[in-house]
C-alpha cells in the first residue's frame, strides 16, 4: 500500500470530505492503487518539455467590465438550503 491510513485521512480533511469508518479501508486500497498506477509517469523523460497550459494554446479572452446579467438573487437563492434577507445562513463561525 503506497498510502497510509493517516495520509488518506489528511487528504480527506484537505478536501473537506468526511469518510465513514467503514469506507476508509476501501479508500486507502483504491487510492493507493491509483497513485501506484500514475507513478509510471515518473520514469518518463520530460527535460526541456513545457507543461501544457491549454489544449489549443489559446490565451484567455477578456471582456469589458460591464454589467451584462440581471439581478436574479431571489430566484437563484431558491436552491439554497438556508437564507435570510438575501444572505446565506451557516453555523456561527465566531464565538
Amino acid at each position: 500500500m503506497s498510502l497510509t491510513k493517516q495520509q488518506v485521512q489528511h487528504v480527506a480533511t484537505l478536501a473537506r470530505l468526511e469518510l465513514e469508518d467503514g469506507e476508509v479501508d476501501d479508500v486507502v486500497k483504491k487510492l493507493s492503487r491509483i497513485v501506484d498506477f500514475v507513478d509510471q509517469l515518473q520514469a518518463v523523460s520530460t527535460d526541456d518539455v513545457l507543461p501544457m497550459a491549454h489544449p489549443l494554446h489559446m490565451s484567455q479572452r477578456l471582456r469589458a467590465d460591464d454589467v451584462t446579467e440581471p439581478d436574479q438573487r431571489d430566484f437563484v437563492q431558491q436552491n439554497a438550503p438556508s437564507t435570510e434577507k438575501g444572505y446565506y445562513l451557516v453555523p456561527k463561525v465566531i464565538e
Partner: protein
Amino acid sequence: MHRQTLRGLYDGLSRGDFSSRELTEALLGRIEAHGATLNAFITVTAESALLQADLADKARANGTGGPLNGLPIVHKDLFCTKGVLTTCGSKILGDFVSPYDATVVQRMADAGAVMLGKTNMDEFAMGSSNETSFYGPVTNPWNTKLSPGGSSGGSAAAVAARLVPAATGTDTGGSIRQPAALTGIVGLKPTYGRVSRYGMVAFASSLDQAGVITRSAEDAALLLGVMAGLDKRDSTSADHPVPDYVAGLSKPVKGLKIGVVRQHFDEGLDASCAERVRASLAALEDAGASLVEIDLPSIGLSVPTYYVVAPAECSSNLSRFDGVRFGHRCGDPEDLSDLYCRSRGEGFGAEVKRRIMTGTYVLSAGYYDAYYLKAQKVRQLISRDFKNAFEKVDVIAGPTAPTTAFAIGEKTDDPITMYLNDIYTIGANLAGLPGISVPCGFADGLPVGLQLVGPHFAEETILACAHQYQQLTDWHTEGPEDFA
C-alpha cells in the same frame, strides 16, 4: 416513426406525414414503456415537451421553424435546464433546479428542438459504465445485464433503444464515444472549445467538451451546426468559423490519408473487436482511402496522465459543493467545518470522492511538481505526437474501446480496470482533438465502434469520413431486437 433518424423525421414533418405533437407523444410512450428497464432517464419532461411540440407545429404552419423545428432531443443531466431538475447523477444535486439554460440547451431550443427529458449518467460524469450514478446503473439495450458504457450511458441507451433519435452528451475522457461504441450508435466529441461549456456542470475544465449521440453521422453534423460557435459566456469557447457540416458530408473518402496507430492493436484489444476494426479500415481503403501506419510513441501514457490532470481539475471544480449556496446540506451541523465535511461526505458517491482525493493529493504541497506538473509535461508530449501524425495523415482511425459491452458489476472492484476502458479515447481529450465513434459491426452479437480522430477543428473531415463509411455499410441501421 421511432426508427427514423432526425433527417428522416424532419422530412416527414415537412411533408406533413405526422405532426410534432404526434411524434412527441409516440416517443414519450416509448420512454414510458421502456424507461424502467433501461433506467436511461432521471427526468422526463412530458408536459413541457408537448407544449414545445405544439409551438413547433404552429411555427411550421407559419413557415418560421428553425433547423431542428419539432425534432426530439434529450439532454444528459449535466446540462443546466431552466426550471428543470439538473442532478448530474449525484445526490448532492438531488434537488437542484437550474435557474438558467446551458448554451447548448438554449441553442437547440432556439432551433426548435423539443426536449423530452434528462438522461442518467455516471455521477459528475466520472465513470465508464454508468454504475456510479446515484440514480442506479443504466442497462444496455443489446443485453440488459450489460453496461451501456459511460458516462453518457443514459443518452446512449435511449438512442440505441430507439426511444429518441438523438441526445446530447459530454466527453472528458471518452464519455460520448465509448458508450456510443458499446451501444452501436454514433458519438461525436468536437474539438475543445468548439461547443460552449456554459451551463455544463464542470468536471475537468481543460478536457470537458459537449457533443452528440445519434444514429447517423448526418444527424451528428446537423446538431453540431446548431451547437457550435463562439459564446461570450464561455471564455474558452473558440472564435472559429462554423462551416456547414451537413454540406461537407458529401466529400468522398477517395484520396483521404488514414493513419492507423501501431500501438492501438497491441495486446489490450479484444481479438474479435480488432478484426471488425480492421475490416472497416479495409472497406475505407476499397473506397479509395489510403492507410498509413503511424506511431504515437507516448500514447501509452495517456491514461495515467489523464488520471492526474482530470482529478486535479475535478478537486478544484467540485469545491463549489459546500452545502451553503445550493445542493445537499447535512442535518444539524456542529460548525462550518462539520457542515462542509458532512454535506460533501454524504452528498458525493465513492468514485467522486476517490477522484477528489486523488486530485487533492497530486496538487498538495510536496507532490505538485512530481505529479501535476509532470503530467502536464507528458500531456504536451502526447499532444506533440498527434501534431506530428497529422502532418502525414488526415484522420487517425482505430478502435473506440478495447472490448464490447461488459457486465454490470464486472469492473467495479478495481478502479484501474475501469479506467483502461478509455485507453483509446483519452488521447483526443488531452490534445483537445475532435473524435467520432461509428458502429462498425458486431462481435458475439454486441456492437463494436470505429473511432476517427482529426486535427483541431477538422470535424468536417471526420464527419464526412464517418458518413461515407455509413454509405458503404449498414451497421448503423441495426438495432436491438427487444426494442424494435
